[in-house]
């Protein structure tokens, strides 16, 4: 099977043809079985999301591996990492293998289960990280996401242990002692609305602590959903000053919603805007954009968090935190980073594909658009505008904060190892 993609602009640069054969990009475009006119479309390496909640097993009323995979493919993703706060928790080889196999059966995106750091995300006893690493799912990323590994001794042990597995620990940085009952960013908006504040220091103090622990252990630390300007400063300090054992690596992600939305979204108390960490003031969003452009923050991760309507159509303080992200991530990056001139399409490829693939150690994702490389592609129309409708997204849940909002950029085609997973904005059925 040979596919000729005509007049496409790799990284938004000069139009050319891309040829795909047997899952690889090749040179010879003669006698194609299929020709796709990609006039005006920009080609990017398939997107990689280090932070997705697919909710299966246990939360199938909000999302499944199948629906989440469809949302990922429609969002331009070719690989996603599924966080372990499922029910049962992804804290044992059997559960991570189940999720990994479901991902393979669906086949729309590479699904990599993230293993829990501690049993049941309880923060007290290390989960069987080695057995999860040795399972067919080959887990290389561990996280208690949703909960912080708050105990410094447990975190130290996790980092040391993960080092021996060549794995990284992705920390949800939140000192829970500082966020008891927290509902929204601690500041003037929360004070006025009578919502208990989530202070920036609860994140920043954990980022600093963990960077020191990881440096001492020579371990790889990844900071999930970094949300404050202060945390960017802590990253800079850690990279410039910490005396680290060999093997130390420090990376961080930012979510699209923390690049765009601010804490004023809580006005009106609609919990579709409730997320953890909370939306921050505009000064933080602008600092996060700059840090992403400068490379101080390595990548964008969605923290795609589907919730059933009952979990959101209620009082703010009882609503579950989180919002859909897979199908709106690249449009929000285009809006906040490209249209502002902070990133070109090479930069977008770096923060949405190359950097996350490198952090997670995926050999065949985030690769250059070059002959001989795997054909994981996302073709986007950067000039398109579309109106977000939660009911029209592929996820079962509809909790998008962008309901009714016009966003730029549409994902037109997605290709996973030479096979179309999305054609013309629709999921491509798998050929038997």
């Amino acid at each position, binding site marked *: 099977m040979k596919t000729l993609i005509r007049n496409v602009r790799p990284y938004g640069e000069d139009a050319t043809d891309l040829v795909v054969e047997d899952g690889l990009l090749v040179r010879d475009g003669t006698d194609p079985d299929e020709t796709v006119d990609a006039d005006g479309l920009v080609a990017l390496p398939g997107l990689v999301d280090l932070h997705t909640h697919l909710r299966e097993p246990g939360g199938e009323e909000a999302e499944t591996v199948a629906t989440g995979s469809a949302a990922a493919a429609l969002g331009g993703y070719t690989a996603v990492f599924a966080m372990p706060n499922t029910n049962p928790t992804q804290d044992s080889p059997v559960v991570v293998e189940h999720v990994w196999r479901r991902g393979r059966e669906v086949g729309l995106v590479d699904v990599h289960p993230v293993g829990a750091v501690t049993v049941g995300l309880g923060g007290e006893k290390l989960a069987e990280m080695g057995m999860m690493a040795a399972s067919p799912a080959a887990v290389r990323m561990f996280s208690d996401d949703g909960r912080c590994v708050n105990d410094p001794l447990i975190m130290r042990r996790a980092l040391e242990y993960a080092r021996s597995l060549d794995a990284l620990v992705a920390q949800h940085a939140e000192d829970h002692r500082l966020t008891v009952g927290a509902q929204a960013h601690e500041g003037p908006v929360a004070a006025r*609305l*009578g*919502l208990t504040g989530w202070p920036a220091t609860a994140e920043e103090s954990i980022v600093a602590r963990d960077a020191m622990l990881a440096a001492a252990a020579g371990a790889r630390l990844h900071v999930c959903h970094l949300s404050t300007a202060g945390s960017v400063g802590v990253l800079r300090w850690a990279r410039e000053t910490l005396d680290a054992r060999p093997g130390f690596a420090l990376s961080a992600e930012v979510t699209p919603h923390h690049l765009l939305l601010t804490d004023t979204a809580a006005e009106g*108390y*609609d919990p579709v805007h409730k997320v953890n960490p909370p939306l921050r003031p505009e000064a933080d969003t602008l600092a996060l954009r700059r840090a992403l452009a400068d490379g101080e923050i390595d990548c964008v991760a969605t923290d795609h968090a589907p919730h059933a309507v009952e979990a959101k159509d209620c009082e*703010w*303080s*009882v609503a579950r935190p989180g919002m859909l992200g897979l199908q709106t991530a690249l449009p929000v990056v285009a809006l906040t980073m490209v249209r502002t001139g902070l990133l070109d399409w090479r930069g977008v490829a770096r923060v949405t594909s190359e950097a996350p693939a490198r952090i997670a150690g995926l050999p065949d994702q985030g690769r250059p658009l070059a002959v001989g490389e795997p054909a994981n592609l996302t073709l986007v129309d950067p000039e398109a505008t579309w109106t977000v409708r939660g009911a029209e997204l592929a996820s079962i849940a509809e909790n998008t904060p962008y309901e009714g909002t016009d966003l730029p950029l549409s994902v037109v085609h997605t290709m996973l190892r030479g096979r179309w997973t999305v054609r013309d904005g629709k999921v491509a059925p798998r050929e038997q």
Partner: protein
Amino acid sequence: MTAPDDGTPAPGAVGLRHLLSTEHLRRDQADALLATAENMEQALTGRAVRKLPTLRGRTIVTLFYENSTRTRVSFEVAGKWMSADTINVSASGSSVGKGESLRDTAATLAAAGADAVVVRHPASGAPHRIAGWLDGVGHSHTDGHVAVVNAGDGTHEHPTQALLDAATLRKRLGPDLAGRRVAIVGDVLHSRVARSNAHLLATLGAEVTLVSPPTLLPIGVDAWPVAVTHDLDTHLATGPDAVMMLRVQAERMHGGFFPSAREYAVRFGLSQRRADTLPDHAVVLHPGPAVRGMEIASAVADSDRAAIAEQVTAGVHVRMAVLYHLLAGEDVA
């Protein structure tokens, strides 16, 4: 339409659909509500039977997710004195995992014919949510509109408390509160009374100073239209016109917000000695129920300076005014 007295603003003139906060209450709306409350009091004075026909045929439901005898009774009396039918619904717990959701409860009350729902809820913003849901449904048998009154939501607002405090201050200090200096003392962080009073008093032109230990002030309070101090004695020496004491709930005493009840009483309690430093005309307010001996000395609470009983009385008139402006319409007999 039966107006309660001459000079009362027409029911629709205030332009309120719900009363959710004082933050968004305009000066003219606040003035109209307070003027109506005074007229309600006059209309009832000297009557053998305290009953106005104003809201005959209207149904008011009080929906309380927290216990509160005084606020519930105040709303119920206000409704009954205007001949409305009042129904009390007690609920408990949050909407998650404990039966019916808040949305379903609100929709049920609307479908059953409630014209107003008076809500007290432990979650900040719960009345806003109900108002949003009911505005989209409109089940009421009259004009499709169900008015929502916030009777205290979490640590957000308690607008009728602020209105009754303002009504009490106007009686004691005169109708114009502009330039009057009001100290609000105690647990501002967890107080919906403090938030509602800070906004309403500022709207009425008063100068508000919050007096509180730093641990009981919200981060971000500097954006409020108030001054802030941590030193009660120094502030009292400036001669405020009114001192409003806030409740300190028992769970705060053990939450590490301050070292001990004893130290709190010493630093922030309104003792007789402190009350004696106030100007003669200065008023002492407390939303009740007061913790005597800690927040306020018994002798102060029982002194002529204290307006605690007047606050309760004003509460009924203010709530009559609120219900009147939300519910009375051209089709009321």
